[in-house]
């Protein structure tokens, strides 16, 4: 009987401690929820603005997209007219999680690419940038895969091209569906 009691006391104490910790976490969450959401919004907006400086605000476009498309934003200028789309993609180069922001006009032409984060072998993304792949991709509206990559960094180049191709397809889909 004594054993049952000690187990019950232990279980009860642990449950109580957990309950108090949960309450403390819930309180902190209430306090920090607003600022965290605001930070995330600002981070997204800044990343969007980097590739599309003409837009003043960005709205998330709802819908289901191909694997690798993280989000699609529509840029609006101060008068509320559409300035095109920014697509966030996550593809695989040599390593996974090659995250890009690509600005695409409504007709499907690429006009800006920024790397948000990547975990390629150090130096390879620089090689791709210096090799001019990003410049070659700007202005493309179809067959992104046919653009020349950078020799010696083929897998990273392919990851970038895949991301841009996904972005172009996603925007074409959004425009086609109105």
């Amino acid at each position, binding site marked *: 009987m004594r054993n049952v009691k*000690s*187990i019950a*006391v*232990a*279980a009860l*104490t*642990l449950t109580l*401690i*957990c309950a108090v*910790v949960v309450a*403390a*976490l819930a309180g*902190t*969450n209430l*306090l*920090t929820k*607003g*600022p*965290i959401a605001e*930070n995330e919004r600002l*981070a997204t907006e800044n990343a969007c603005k980097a590739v599309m400086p003409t837009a003043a605000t960005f709205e998330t476009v709802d819908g289901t997209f191909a694997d690798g498309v993280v989000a699609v934003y529509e840029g609006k200028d101060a008068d509320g007219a559409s300035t095109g789309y920014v697509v966030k993609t996550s593809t695989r180069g040599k390593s996974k999680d090659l995250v890009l922001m690509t600005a695409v006009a409504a007709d499907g032409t690429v006009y800006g690419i920024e790397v948000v984060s990547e975990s390629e072998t150090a130096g390879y993304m620089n090689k791709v940038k210096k090799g001019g792949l990003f410049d070659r991709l700007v202005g493309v509206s179809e067959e992104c895969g046919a653009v020349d990559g950078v020799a010696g960094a083929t897998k990273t180049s392919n990851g970038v091209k895949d991301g841009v191709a996904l972005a172009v397809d996603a925007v074409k889909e959004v425009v086609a569906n109105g």
Partner: protein
Amino acid sequence: MGKYKESFTKGIVKENPVLRLVLGTCPTLAVSTTVIGGLGMGVAATFVLVCSNIVISLLRKLIPSMVRLPAYIVVIAGFTTIVQMLLKAFVPSIDQILGIYLPLIVVNCIILGRAEAYAGKHSVGLSALDGLGMGVGFTAALVLMSAIREFFGSGTLAGWPENGMFPAIAVFAAPAGGFFVFGLLIWATNKLSAKFDKEFTPKTSFDCSACPHAASCEKMTMGGGCDE
């Protein structure tokens, strides 16, 4: 007064968690590539360490020993998550540098080690000071190590100057360089301790005395270790 001073100062040099007890080496090696990252990690871990030491010391008579480890981990995880939410909300740049190592403070062996070996047996005041001393020692070791690694590995200190003072020696910033610097720092600490601390006895064999459970281990007090 003496024991209060002792419980604070011992963590800084004599029982420095990183350089003498060799605890918490995972975050030490991982986030010591930049001074800002090292400092952020140190301060975040110190906060969790002091808070969890206080709470665990307060609850030490209420927690049945059968469930003390899960109880400690719940308390530590709670504080770690609070720190993470606060950093995300108010200092997102530090949150980005620390990345995955911030939630991993939960399993930082310095914190669980101090909870088990110290806070579970001592009064609130002593435990808070112990946590603070260990935290300051941890932070100091991290800042020292990250300053060396950042200076040689990127040619900067706390991000200044932007383009580096000289061509970087990349190996210092790489994981292997972390081990080099870590080893040299432990060597230097032992050398300096031998010179200035009269009670210091150099380690000639490796026993259980550095184990976080040493103070509470029954086998240790009988003169043995885990092998016996």
